[in-house]
Each structure stands twice: as C-alpha cells, then as structure tokens.
C-alpha cells in the first residue's frame, strides 16, 4: 500500500513493506521508516494525549527532540515511553499512543544487553557534515578514531535536505564517507549509537541499538564506555519553537522536521501549510515541501524585511501567527493581519539552538550569541573541540570546513600529525559566508540577517494559558509567569517549580525557550540568565541496558566454601554474608526453621555439632615488627602472646568505636594469623595496609589474605573432645594438655590440621583448620562418626547470643565502644598507645547514659521481639516525639533457656538490670525485663567440657 501521504519510496532502503498496528488499527510502512514517519504516511495526525491537560498531540519533531509523540510498545516486548520519532519501524510492531506514563512489562525481558569498553585517540560525536569531516581529518593522521552517530544512516541533517556535496546528494556523500571510514583499520564507525553522557577525563558513555527484538544471539543494546584522548562534538542543532496560542495542536510541526519527513522519508506531513518563521531556514523547508507536493499557503515572517526571498508563496512579513483553528488538529491558522488561512499544517521555525548538552555535561561554559539568539560554547574544561552547528555554524560549507579543522586539531592535540587538508568538499551552499555564530553571516540554511534581531520566542497575548513552552510537561507561558510572579528569578528554580524541561525529552526544545520567557517576564537579559544545568543522560536509556549482564547470578560474585556441595546435598538453606553463601540451617523433613534451629542448638549444648567456619577472614601477618604492629592495632596486648597460644582481640577506629573482632594466633615470634569477621575481612586487610603504608612505613610487616587457603570446621559441644580424640590419636586432648586458647598442629582423620581450642558458643569446642582441598574429607570424617550434628549460622548466632558475645555489625553499628559492650577487660591499661586509645578518655565515651549491651527477657517467654524494635520507659506512650532508650539488636528463641530472649543496646543499660522497659510495636507496648547480657552459663563452667 502506498498511502496518499507517501510521495516516493526512499532510495537505499529496498522499500520493503512492513505491517504494524497503532492504537488498534493496522497500517503499513516501509523499511527505513520511523514509527512517526509511518504514521504520518498513513495520515495519522493525533498520536498521544498530553499528560496533565489531556490535550491531543501529534508529531512535532523528527528525532530525539520530540516532546509530543510518546508511545508504548506492546509487541513484541512491552516498552514504555518511547518517542515515535526514534522507534525504527519493523514488521509486526504493535504500539499505542500514551497519556502520561507508560507501563513496564510484567514479564522478564528476554533480550540480552551487553557492554563494551573502548579507548581511542579521537572520538567524534555526530556523523553530520561537520562530524564526518572531522573524523576524516582525524583518521588521516593515523589516530585511532571512533565516530558515533545516533541515527541509522550517516549524514546528520543531510538526508533531511536537498543539499549536495561535490555534486552528489548530501546523503549519498555522507554514506560514501562513512563507508570509507569504516573500512580503515583504526576507525570504528558506530551507527544507531547515542552518546548520552560526558563524564570526567573524557569518559563518554553511549548506547548502541543493535536491531529488532529477539535478534538471534545478539545483544539488543550495548553500552559503550569510551575513554577518548580528544573529543570532537559535532552534535548539530535543534530548531527552536515559538510560543503562541494553541501551539501544541496536531499539525503544528517544526519546519525542519517537516522538511525531513519530505526528504528523508518521502512522506508529506500535510496537504496545505502555513510557515511561521523568524529566520531564513524555513524558506528552504518551504521550497522542499512545495516541490514534494505540499501547498504552501503563506509564509508568516516576524521580520519586517526578511533576508530570504521566495516566489512560491505569499510572504506576510512583520506578522505573527496568533492561533490555530480546528477541533483537535489544525484546520486553519490565524495571522496578526486578521486573516484566517485554511491549512492542515503549521510549520514553525524560531531559529536554531546548538546542541550543547554534552558540552555542558563536560563542564563547558556557554555564552549567549546575539547573532543566532542562542547559547554557544565559550570555554571547554575537558580536552574537546566543538564543530559545526553545535557551535552555531549553520551553513553546510561552513560545517564541512569547521569539522575538518576541528578533526585536525583534535588529532594533533592527541599527538598525531594531521596530513595536508583534503580539498574542501564543494557544498551546494558554497559562497555562503557563514563562518561561525558570532559572524552573523546570512546563509540559506538558517543563519539570520545581521540587520534585525533574530531572537523571537513569544507571540504577545493577553492570555498565555495555551502558549506552550514545554509540550511534554504541559507547561505554558502562564505557568512560567506564575513562577516568576512568585518571586523565582533563576531558571533552575523556575524549572523545578513549573517542571519545564524535566520530562524525558529533558527540555531539548523547551530549555532555551524557558530561559527566554523567564527573561521576558522579569525584564532580565537572557545572556545573564543562562540555561539550566545539562546532565546525563542526553536521551532516555533503559535500566536493562545499563545493567547489561550484571544481573541475576552475575550481579555480584558468589563465594562458596570447599564444603558447599555437601551443604547443598544435605538440604541446607543459605544465608548471604557479604558475597559468601553460608549454611543457615539444615532442616530435616517436616521441620520449619524454628524447629531445625532449636534441634541444632540442643545438639551443640548437649552432645556435639559441627559448623563450616571457613568464611572467617584470615590474614597472615609476619615480619620482625609484627607483634608491635598488632599491639598498635588491637585494644589489647598481643606482643605478650606466646607461640602456641591464642588471644581474642578487638580493633577500634581512631574514634574508639569497635571496628572488628576476632582471634589472634601466634605461629612464631615474627608470625601471627589474625581472624576477622566474615563480612569485614577485606576491610580489615585494607585497614592494616593503610596504617602500615601511611603512618608506620618503618614497621617491617607484611599482611597477606589467606582466607581461602583454609577450610575451617568448628566442632562444638560437650562431646567434641571425644570426637576429636577418636579422629586424632596423636595429641593429648585433655583440658590440662590442650588448654583453652591454645593451638596444636595435629593429624585429624589422617589430614594435616591446625587445631585451635576456641569457643564461640561457650561449650567445649575446637576449630579444626585444614588445607581447603582437604576440607570435605575432614567434614565427612567428622560426620562419619555418627555423633556430629551439622549446624548453621542461625544456631551459631543463638548460641553466641546466649553467652552475650556480640556480633560486630549486628550488635554494633559504629557508635559502640568496647566498654559499651561490657568488654572493658579487652582494653589494655598498660599499652602506651593503640588506635582509639585517646578516644576512651573523651568525655563523650564516659557518658553514663551511653548505650550498653544488655539482655532482654520478654515478660511473655514465648514472645519473640523483632530486631530493630525500640525501647521506651513506660507502658503508656507520651505525645510524640517519644524518646527512645535504645533498640533490640539480636532476638532469638533459646532451647537452653526454654524461652525467647534478646540483646539490646540500652541507654545506661547496665544500671537498669532488673528494670522493666517496654517495646512499642503498634498495639499494647510489650513489657521486657533488662538483664545482664550473658544469659547462659555466666560462670563459664562449660568451656572446658
């Protein structure tokens, strides 16, 4: 089907017909169409409904600057909030026009997304005439060049116009140059690739669209993260809208966009048009549209003496458009001379705004250029060049020249010698004197005359309620005036107050217009007022694309111990501790978590259990000054530790707050093995390195992580000695021969092992360390005795809490001192200095109302307090704010105590032992009694079995 709006099939696209459905209607388009051009080709004018006001909206622009035509893709995979002007048409596409928000898919995205990291000497952004010329000049120097362009075919605006280069159509010239560049070994040409972020040190991020949905084995989109030696921004210009009554109606369109639909897509966006312009470029658009078959009814030119001439239509100079008629879409245009002209299309051109978004993101500063009535780059902060329309050079010949010069400069700045310049391509507008924005040169392609002010933004009116500034956000001139009337003078404030520029077109068309209206409203100079800040992303990017492959199992590395497969085979559920998977508990058939944990707890307290403790951080600390180093690091003395002995230690930050705890094993005079909490292992190693490198470089100490070298099994319970003796006939294991807090090298089940007498449960216990690859053999030998119950982290937590042993990071939060934990004994009074010592003499760390670690017993022994719950003084809550006395840090059901219990940090807690406090949980506050934090075996009688 060739619709009556389709003039011809574009060359180079094969003209393959594509079926699609929009708002429930079946249509046909052609390969190479966007959804917008295909809709226009089918005579569809109203595409969406505005979000706030519910007004009908059509297609206003032809690329990423589109504010109106926002659609939802329904098939083949739901995607919300896309611009119809950037959706490439494909067969079977189903879409609907949107009102406001779109709808996210409720099913997983089957597409893959990927990322590429790239380096280059020169990155050229934009493959319009300036960008192509720049890339060609840079590539000629031997520099590694990446040319990234967001459209499917090269040429920038060239395919939108009828201009020629070197005697061939601009689009054909551009394709040839791009093909030549792509064939060179050190040049990469990326089409359909939008550079959306310009970050520090010339780090740019782009998204490459790689084709239709479900492409076989290919990522649908790729993120490019590019570090460039030098950047050339050839990002072009956006045409500027004009604010007048009902300027949002379907049928109102930027003149350049209409020209693009006619030339690039062979589509007529209307039958009879009025052109409303403040500059010359709209005349070229009118000429092209007329030759394509659109009747140009009149050109309304705000200038008294337009520089451009054209005989094809009546020119109403010195006039403005005051409104449009029609029920919905445009059917007539009202002019300030009183006429109402029948037309279904109103083409608007208020001038051109250089696309300075990436330049702004890069920290560049702008200046206002009177000659073009817009902002252009003034000074760059990063290693970049700006070329062509992006800096206000609007003629084709000027862009070709400017781009070539910028490309050569960039290559030279990157350390390459640019070859002698190509003879400049001959553009169809050669002779136009446009050589930069400030030259005020006139040209066929938009640069205005010098003799009249060019900036025209607003048609004066007594009622600004339908003069739209930001079409997507439904912000009108009246809204902006209300903001300035409320006293706002900064464009940043007006943006946030009115939301102008905050939609997902990010104000590409409305930004400068908003500044102009604000300037007009408060009588300020737009040059002083400036623009809002440009921030990434330049265009919408999906989270799925940014996430790439870093999702699901690949989101974060998973660490497992050498016993992991056994745990899985025996039904363990797992807990994430940092990146580690730790067995949480091992439910037997029919057991829930509570039953399993109570059973595991009883096994340890009454017979013997085994836990995989391999994830504990282990750091080998050695060197002649190792003992001195550990004395400075830990709050207690480590240098007095004897070889063969073990000591528990606490590390604090300089502010005196607990940072980590663990055991220190002395292996030799100059060698220690330090254990850390599972989640803190890397942080402790970093902490050691920081002090060694930055404060104590004279200490001869070397720290090495050996966490994964060892498999560690905690064997705990009154039966543990018998189990160990059965498997390790070598050493005597009686209490006198193998006392608490010592270690032995021994053979356990025939495996070389280091056995430590350490307990984290209060029971007689051993930690058996073997080479990681022997871990499973050891573990299986222990379980082959038939006496051992495997237990997980939940049981370990309950058992240690019964004994009042804190877990750093659960019972502490960076505001807790050793004294707060009731561990005064771990802070040396003798040592001259250690990290944190001075802080224990601060008045704040001596406050009597500091939060102390205490135990809590709920009055109802079956009530389990939620961790994180707050404690208050009385059972009746006063008016808010209610002062909190502290919070519950750990809460469990205890098999040994036959009841629930909790640990808590409570203000002045040690002085409150025996007091009744309350936990407000929504209903009646829950009464609890404060106790000492050691609730089980306070005498420590069970430690030696």
């Amino acid at each position, binding site marked *: 089907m060739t619709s009556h709006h389709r003039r011809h099939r574009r060359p180079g696209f094969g003209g393959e017909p594509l079926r699609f459905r929009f708002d429930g209607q079946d249509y046909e388009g052609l390969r190479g169409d966007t959804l917008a051009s295909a809709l226009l080709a089918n005579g569809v004018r109203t595409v969406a409904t505005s979000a706030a006001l519910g007004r009908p909206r059509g297609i206003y622009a032809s690329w990423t600057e589109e504010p109106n035509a926002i659609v939802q893709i329904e098939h083949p995979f739901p995607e919300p909030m896309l611009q119809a002007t950037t959706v490439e048409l494909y067969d079977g596409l189903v879409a609907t026009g949107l009102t406001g928000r779109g709808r996210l898919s409720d099913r997983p995205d089957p597409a893959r997304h990927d990322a590429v990291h790239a380096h280059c000497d020169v990155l050229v952004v934009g493959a319009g005439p300036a960008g192509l010329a720049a890339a060609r000049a840079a590539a000629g120097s031997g520099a590694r060049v990446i040319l990234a362009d967001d459209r499917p075919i090269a040429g920038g605006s060239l395919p939108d116009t009828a201009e020629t280069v070197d005697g061939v159509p601009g689009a054909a010239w551009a394709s040839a140059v791009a093909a030549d560049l792509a064939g060179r070994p050190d040049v990469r040409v990326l089409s359909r690739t939008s550079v959306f972020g310009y*970050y*520090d*040190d*010339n*780090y740019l991020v782009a998204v490459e669209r790689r084709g239709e949905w479900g492409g076989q084995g290919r990522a649908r989109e790729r993120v490019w*993260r590019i*570090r460039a030696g030098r950047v050339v921004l050839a990002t072009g210009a956006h045409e500027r809208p004009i604010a007048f009554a009902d300027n949002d109606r379907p049928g109102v369109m930027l003149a350049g966009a209409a020209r693009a639909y006619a030339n690039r897509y062979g589509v007529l966006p209307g039958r009879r048009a009025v052109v409303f312009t403040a500059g010359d470029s709209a005349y070229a658009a009118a000429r092209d549209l007329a030759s394509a078959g659109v009747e140009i009814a009149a050109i309304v030119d705000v200038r008294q003496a337009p520089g451009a001439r054209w005989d094809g239509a009546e020119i109403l100079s010195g006039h403005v458009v005051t409104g449009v008629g029609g029920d919905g879409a445009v059917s007539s245009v009202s002019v300030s001379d009183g006429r109402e002209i029948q037309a279904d299309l109103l083409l608007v051109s208020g001038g051109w705004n250089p696309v300075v978004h990436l330049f702004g993101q890069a*920290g560049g500063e702008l200046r206002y250029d009177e000659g073009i009535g817009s902002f252009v780059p003034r000074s760059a*902060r990063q290693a970049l060049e700006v070329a062509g329309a992006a800096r206000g050079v609007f003629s084709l010949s000027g862009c070709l020249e400017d781009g070539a010069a910028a490309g050569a400069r960039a290559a030279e700045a990157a350390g390459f010698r640019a070859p002698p310049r190509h003879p400049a391509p001959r553009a169809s507008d050669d002779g136009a004197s446009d050589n930069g924005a400030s030259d005020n040169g006139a040209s066929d392609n938009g640069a205005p005359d010098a003799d009249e002010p060019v900036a025209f933004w607003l048609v004066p009116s007594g009622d600004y309620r339908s003069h739209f500034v930001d079409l997507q956000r439904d912000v009108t001139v009246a809204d902006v005036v209300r903001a300035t009337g409320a006293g706002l003078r900064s464009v940043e404030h007006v943006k946030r107050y009115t939301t102008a520029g905050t939609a997902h077109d990010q104000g590409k068309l409305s930004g400068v217009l908003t500044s102009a209206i604000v300037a007009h409203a408060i009588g300020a100079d737009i040059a002083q007022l400036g623009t809002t800040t440009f921030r990434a992303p330049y265009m919408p990017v999906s989270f799925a694309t940014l996430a790439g492959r870093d999702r699901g199992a690949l989101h974060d590395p998973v660490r497992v111990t050498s016993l992991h497969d056994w745990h899985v085979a025996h039904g363990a559920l797992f807990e994430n501790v940092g990146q580690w998977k730790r067995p949480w508990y091992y439910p037997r058939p029919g057991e829930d978590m509570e039953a399993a944990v109570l059973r595991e707890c009883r096994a340890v307290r009454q017979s013997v259990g085994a836990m995989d403790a391999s994830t504990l951080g282990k750091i080998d600390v050695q060197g002649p000054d190792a003992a001195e180093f550990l004395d400075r690091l830990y709050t207690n003395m480590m240098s007095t530790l004897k070889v063969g002995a073990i000591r528990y230690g606490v590390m604090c930050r*300089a*502010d005196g707050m607990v940072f980590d705890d663990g055991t220190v094993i002395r292996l030799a005079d100059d060698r220690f093995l330090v254990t850390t909490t599972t989640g803190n292992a890397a942080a402790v190693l*970093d902490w050691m*390195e*920081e002090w060694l*490198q*930055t*404060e104590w470089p004279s200490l001869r100490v070397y720290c090495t992580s050996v966490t994964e070298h060892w498999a560690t099994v905690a064997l705990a319970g009154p039966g543990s000695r018998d189990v160990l003796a059965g498997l390790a006939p070598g050493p005597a294991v009686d209490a006198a021969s193998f006392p608490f807090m010592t270690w032995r090298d021994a053979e356990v089940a025939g495996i070389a092992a280091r056995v430590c007498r350490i307990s984290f449960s209060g029971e007689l216990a051993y930690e058996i360390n073997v080479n990681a690859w022997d871990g499973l053999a050891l573990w299986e030998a222990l379980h082959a005795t038939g006496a051992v119950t495997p237990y997980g982290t939940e049981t370990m937590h309950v058992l240690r809490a019964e004994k009042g042993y804190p877990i750093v990071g659960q019972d502490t939060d960076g505001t807790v001192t050793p004294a707060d934990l009731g561990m005064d004994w771990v802070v040396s009074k003798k040592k001259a*200095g250690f990290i944190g*010592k*001075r*802080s224990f*003499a*601060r*008045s704040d760390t001596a406050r009597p109302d500091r939060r102390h670690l205490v135990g809590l017993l709920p009055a109802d022994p079956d009530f389990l307090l939620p961790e994180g719950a707050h404690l208050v003084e009385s059972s009746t809550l006063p008016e808010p704010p209610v002062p909190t006395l502290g919070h519950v840090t750990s809460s469990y059901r205890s098999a040994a105590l036959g009841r629930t219990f909790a640990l808590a940090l409570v203000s002045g807690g040690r002085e409150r032992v025996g007091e009744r406090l309350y936990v407000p949980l929504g209903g009646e506050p829950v009464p609890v009694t404060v106790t000492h934090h050691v609730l089980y075996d306070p005498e420590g009688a069970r430690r030696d079995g």
Partner: protein
Amino acid sequence: MLLIPCPWCGPRDEAEFRYGGQAHVAYPEDPAALSDEEWARYLFFRDNPKGRFAERWNHTAGCRRWFNVVRDTATNEWVSA
C-alpha cells in the same frame, strides 16, 4: 569516571580506587597530650575546599598502594600527582 594517576600503575579508572580523604592529616605524635577539642579536630574535621585539594587515594583493585594527589575539586583537574 575519573582517570586517576596512580604513581605505580599509571592512569586508571576511578572504579579501581578507594578515596582516602584529605592528605597530610598525620596521626598526632602524642594523642594523650591533646585536649578533647584538639583530638576531635583530628578525628572529625577536614577541609572541603572548592579548588585545589591534596587528597589520598588507594589503588585497591590494582597495586593496593596509597598515594597523594592534588585535585581541583571544581574541575576535577589533576594538578599534581
């Protein structure tokens, strides 16, 4: 993404580093001799200038060395490494 000049490895992506705050804040020679206020100044007070700032970085995902560098906090320009 800053490109940070590691003195040992050369320029590397910011993601490989950990920030260490203001440089040249030495651990006091004798903390016990300081008043509470002086100690608190060491612990908690750091400069936050707009402009040149001597700061510490640690190349955690590389050579794991600490080093000092002067950065302009307004422009992220590396003034000296």
